């Protein structure tokens, strides 16, 4: 009889956790999280009950420099009972962007996977693609002009790469998928590692953007003075690891942000969670 007590106590705590998580998830219509995965990108979006993961950061204990991995980040922001990700996007075939996907596939069911065209022969990326195929995940190639609708009011517009791009530039960073994500009046641009020469052209055509992820972890290859000439985001995000070997974010980029008096946040301080109701947003 005595064994029943700890089980009942455990069950009560469990119900409490599940209810709190359910209420928390229901109250947030649109959440954008820049995960602290060290040197790498992993961006989780929960939009109208749909879970989207853009890039997976490096693999767990894979040298990203962070204490936690993308799976830890998902665990923190997704309810215990929700083990399904509706859409996963790899911006390009660099290990600090796709390495964590291999771990994600061990813990979550993934319905759809999207990436840019062109088959990378990088061994780890091939392993990822084989794993996705083996699990029966639907794989889609996305290019400039594609639009993905999620729920009723969330859209993902693919701004880059153009379909014919692969004959022009073979640099892997420049094959990065660039996305404009919108929920009602809220918008964010996620840039992968795209070089400034292409990115600045894309940004030139954009109206006001709330959240902007600096390209290539704040590298000088992704940002220059021209980047913010006609473009002024409410907040910029730097997704670099602490004391990383590349010196990201570069000094020149930080000088530009400070000179232009732009707000910015860095994942070195932990996960950055942005919650929006479609009009206003809070970042913490």
């Amino acid at each position, binding site marked *: 009889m*005595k*064994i029943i007590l700890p089980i009942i106590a455990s069950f009560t705590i469990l119900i409490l956790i599940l209810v709190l998580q359910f209420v928390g998830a229901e109250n947030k219509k649109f959440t954008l999280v820049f995960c602290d995965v060290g040197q790498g990108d992993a961006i989780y979006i929960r939009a109208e009950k749909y879970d989207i993961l853009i890039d997976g950061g490096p*693999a767990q204990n894979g040298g990203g420099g962070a204490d936690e991995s993308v799976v830890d980040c998902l*665990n923190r922001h997704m309810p215990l009972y929700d083990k399904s990700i509706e859409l996963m996007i790899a911006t390009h075939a660099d290990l600090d962007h796709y390495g964590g996907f291999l771990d994600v596939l061990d*813990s979550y069911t993934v319905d759809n996977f999207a990436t840019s065209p062109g088959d990378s022969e990088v061994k*780890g990326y091939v392993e990822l693609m084989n794993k996705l195929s083996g699990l029966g995940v639907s794989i889609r190639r996305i290019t400039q002009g594609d639009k993905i609708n999620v729920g009723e009011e969330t859209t993902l517009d693919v701004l880059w790469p153009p379909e014919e791009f692969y004959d022009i530039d073979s640099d892997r960073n420049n094959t990065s998928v660039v996305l404009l994500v919108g929920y009602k009046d809220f918008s964010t641009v996620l840039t992968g590692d795209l070089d400034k020469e292409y990115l600045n052209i894309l940004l030139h055509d954009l109206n006001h953007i709330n959240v902007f992820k600096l390209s290539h972890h704040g590298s000088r290859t992704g940002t220059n003075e021209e980047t913010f000439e006609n473009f002024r985001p409410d907040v910029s995000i730097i997704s670099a690891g602490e004391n990383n070997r590349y010196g990201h974010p570069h000094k020149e980029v930080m000088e530009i942000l400070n000179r232009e008096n732009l707000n910015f946040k860095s994942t070195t301080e932990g996960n950055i969670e942005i919650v929006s109701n479609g009009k206003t947003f809070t970042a913490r």
Partner: protein
Amino acid sequence: MRFSNFLKNYEKTVLLILIFSLVFLIRLVFFVAMKDNPEAGETVEFSHTFLEEPFTNSYYQYFYWHGVLVTLERFPEYHYGDKILVRGVVEEVVSRKENDLLKRLAIKNPELKKADSGALAVVKVIRQKVLSVYKRTLPQKEAGLLSGIVLGAGEGINKAFNDELKTTGMLHVVVASGSNVVLVSGMLFSLISSIVKRNYAILFTILGIFFYALLTGFDSPVVRASIMASFAFGAQIFGRQKTALMALFFSGFFMLLVSPGLIVDIGFQLSFSATLGIILFQKTISRLSQILPNIIKEDFSTTIAAQIGSSPFLLFAFGKINLLSIFINLILLWTIPIIMIFGGAAGVAGLVFPVLSVPILYICYPFLLLFTNVVSFMSHFTIPISLTGAFFPITVLYYIILVAVLFRRKNL
């Protein structure tokens, strides 16, 4: 008891100990003299079976072979149960560890051939299925903890939590070592003996021990611990505590005779001392913990008895000593039997009918959550003590006190 009387009463025992020690020392001399270590410049060929996940960083996977660092390309990834044939040249490399330059032998990017891992392939599938059930139901941190506690598979634990476990002195619960086997066998025995006759319970326990060893992949420390535990439990069929003790000593002695290097192997030390603790203290602690529910009481007493037996090794094995770790162990160890029972049941259910394992793991989740949160919280408070060089005298003193306590009880 006066020392002369003691010698008179235990003359045969003392004589036996002396003879065994002498035989072991002779074997040790031969072992050290004939040790054949690889040298720089030598081309070596060997097979390696991954009984634990390889270490990884951004660029490489690596493992150790006879103390030589073997680095492999980051992909394809190798996992538990994979077997490879390796051919490469041993070279001397210099690496930096904090402020020290470290010279060591390494084999970099050797030629590799994947080999058939035989029966281990089946074990690998079973083990992966159990681990997958944990991962797909629980958050990573709790799933990693559960995998570590149930199967000694700590690879799912991230760096931050691993550091916290180390700081709090709780890392021993997630390491594939003899103490896991000893705990499992103790728990199985108390569980089965409450259902069937004692002698049958011992038989089923021994079978259970080997099934568990199979699940952990016949990792050598686990196998050694299984043999010791089986001997110790087997001996209980025929006699009293004394017979079990003799069985434990003989099995330990013969293992050392075959492989004298084990004397400094932490897995061996933990298995031996934990089994010893269970044989000597489990019944007494069980009698003293009447207020606990029956099903937990036996497991609790097994856990504590194993702890008493292996405390010095546990404290010294995993890095610096945090004085608070004794307190943290005390407030958390009661959850281990519960986590093991539910985790084990969920693992078995997961093999047969995965959906069934979800509610079992959900009930286990709050206990895991309690464990992870207490460890995370307590990792901020440390009372570190440096006892460099004091391990041997403290350990000897500890066991002398234990033996003295036992002699006072006069029930040996």
